[in-house]
C-alpha cells in the first residue's frame, strides 16, 4: 500500500546519504510524519525491514515520530 511506496522513496534518499566512508552501519533512522498523513508507524517500520536497501542500512531500525496535526514526511537524520 502507500506505506511501501513511501518507504521506497525514503530508502532511495537514505542509500545516497549513507554512501559516505565515515558511516559503517546505521543503527536508527529518524522519520517525522504528520498526523494528517494517516500513517501507521508499525506498518512503516515493518516495510522498512523488508525493503531492499544498502547493506549499511541492513540492521537499522526505523523510528517514526508522529507530529500532531502536521503534514510532514521528513527524514530527520540517522544514528550510526
Amino acid at each position, binding site marked *: 500500500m502507500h506505506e511501501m*511506496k513511501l518507504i521506497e*522513496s*525514503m530508502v532511495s*534518499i537514505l542509500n545516497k546519504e549513507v554512501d559516505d566512508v565515515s558511516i559503517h552501519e546505521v*543503527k536508527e533512522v529518524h522519520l517525522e510524519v504528520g498526523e494528517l498523513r494517516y500513517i501507521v508507524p508499525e506498518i512503516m517500520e515493518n516495510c522498512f525491514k523488508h525493503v531492499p536497501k544498502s547493506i549499511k542500512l541492513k540492521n537499522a531500525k526505523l523510528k517514526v515520530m508522529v507530529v500532531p496535526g502536521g503534514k510532514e514526511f521528513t527524514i530527520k537524520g*540517522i544514528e550510526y
Partner: protein
Amino acid sequence: MAFKVIKENILKDNDKTASKIRSSLKEKKVFMMNMISSPGAGKTSLLEKAGPLLKKEGISFTILTGDCFTSRDAERMDALSLPVVQINTGNACHIDAGLVRAALSNVEIDGLDLVIVENVGNLVCPAEFDIGEDEKVALLSTAEGHDKPEKYPLLIQESEVALINKTDLLEHVDFDMRYAEKSLCTVNPGIKIIRMSCKTGEGIDNFIEWVKDKIKTKKEQKV
C-alpha cells in the same frame, strides 16, 4: 555513536516531478484537476455526464483515469468517444507524479484546455501525492455517509471544491446534508460545495461552470 542530520522530505522526487508537470502545463496554459473520491462515489459517472457537455462547450480536454488493474473506466468513457488514457497503478492505491508524466507523454498537450485525472478510488493515499494539478476536487456521495469530511480532513483541506453526488438518493439514505456541508466548511472554510446527481443531472451545470471559470483563469495567467 554519531548522528547525521538529513532533513529531507521523502516525497521530494515525486514533488520534483509534479513541479515539472505543473510548470509545463502552466506554460501551455492547460488547467489540470485531480478528482479524488472513495470507490463508487461517481467519478466515472460524472465524466460520462460532463464530458459530452464540455465537448459541446468547445473545450479541448483529455482524461487520465487511474485504476489498479482494469481498464473498465477507460472503456466506459471511450464508448462515449471521450479522449481517455488509462493509468494502471498495480498494487499502488494512488496515482503519483511519475505515472502522470508518463501518461501525458502520450497526449498532444498543445491546444489542450483541460486535463482531468480520475484518481484511484481511495480517500487517503491520493491526497498525499502531488501530481502537478492546479486543483484537487473531492467527490463525496450521499450513499457513503455525512461523516467523511471529518474522517478524511487532509483531502478536504487540500481540495478547492467538494462535489456531493447522488442527491437523488437523499430520500433513501441517512445523509444529513447540513451536517456534511457544515463539517466541510469547518475543515476547509474556503471550500466550494456543489450538490449534484449524475443520475438526474442536477448540479452538473454548476460543475461545468466551475471548470470553465478555472480554465479561463488559467488562460489569463501570465507565464
